[in-house]
């Protein structure tokens, strides 16, 4: 068997495993509820600094950066990171969350850009 065959074998295995994963995905897509929230970045601060969201549903978070400089939305609690260019808006999907406090921050201006999402 050549290298090519080995690669082919590897990809075939991936395909089989992927089909299994697809079945799992289809089974879990039933939770359709989705909420929308907006955060604004201005003068390297998040507004609101504390955002209340509902627990147990997916959340579409729009982050509007009104500063001319780029910012990176980062949250270890939520396991998310996204660069947001100056004067632009980015969309980040989070959740469904269990009730609790989830801290986030702007990595490029960490001193001032701090916030928390509270899921209830």
């Amino acid at each position, binding site marked *: 068997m*050549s290298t090519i065959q*080995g690669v082919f074998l590897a*990809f075939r295995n991936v395909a089989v495993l992927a089909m299994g*994963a697809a079945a799992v995905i289809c089974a879990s897509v039933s939770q359709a509820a989705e909420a929308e929230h907006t955060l604004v970045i201005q003068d390297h601060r998040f507004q609101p600094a504390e955002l209340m969201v509902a627990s147990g549903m997916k959340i579409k978070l729009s982050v509007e950066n009104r500063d001319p*400089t780029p910012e990176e939305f980062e949250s270890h609690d939520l396991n998310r990171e996204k660069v947001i260019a100056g004067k*632009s808006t980015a969309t980040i999907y989070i959740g469904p969350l269990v009730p609790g406090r989830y801290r986030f921050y702007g*990595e490029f201006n960490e001193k001032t850009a701090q916030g928390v999402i509270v899921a209830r």
Partner: protein
Amino acid sequence: MFATAVIVFREVLEAAIIIGIIAAATSSVAGRNRWLMAGFAAGLAGSAAVAASTDAIASMASGIGQELFNAAVLGVAVLMLAWHNIWMSSHGAALAAAARNVGNAIQDGRQECSVLLVVVGLAVLREGAETVLFLYGISTSDGSGTSSMLLGGIAGIVGGVTAGYAIYAGLLRIPLRWFFAATGLLVLLLAAGMAAQAARFLIQADILPSLAAPLWDTSAVLPERSVPGMLLHGLIGYDPRPAGMQLIFYVFTLAAIALGMKGVSHSRRANNQKGNTR
């Protein structure tokens, strides 16, 4: 200045780890350095271009362009690393037998070098773009301390590169007997970690479901921002709060590449035996 150094160090470290491992794993390939430098240069040029078009990339695909871009970059890197490892498991033994420099593998070596170029280029591209954006933000923000922050940026780059070089130099000290197994294993874990990261971006873009997030939480024991956490993240894709889907990607990638390597080295052994009995 210190905060800046830490941020830049974090970004540079991840790329430096990848380059250190790849450079060590391909140390037997002829003409490797040229390709390494070419990949690095291409990655730098690319990261400047990506940084400049962050806005355009982000607004593509109704706001999830950045996630798709990152996932695609990671996906290509995973395929390249898979190819590298499977190629090495069929040629590694021959390379080891003839010490670290083999002339007759030039044809294969060239193929391997283009893989090297792509992986290094992509690593620099992804981490470099964020560093460029961050430093750009600093340089345009007015107020005192700009030059000290830029100095911090340079210190961060130097720190990250030093860490990458330490990994490279450390790997080269491994006895030849274990060398290919060790670098092969590291590349395997690197690829699996990248696949899990790609999954995270696709979850963030709402293309894949998270499937139980977080699956576990080890952030209290080993936070991602601690030095060991950062190193483990770069080396094996450590994530203190992984989603179930990330674990699935990790395990699939690990299994697929390991099976490919096993298949190739088995067939090698079979061919050798056939040759011996003839």
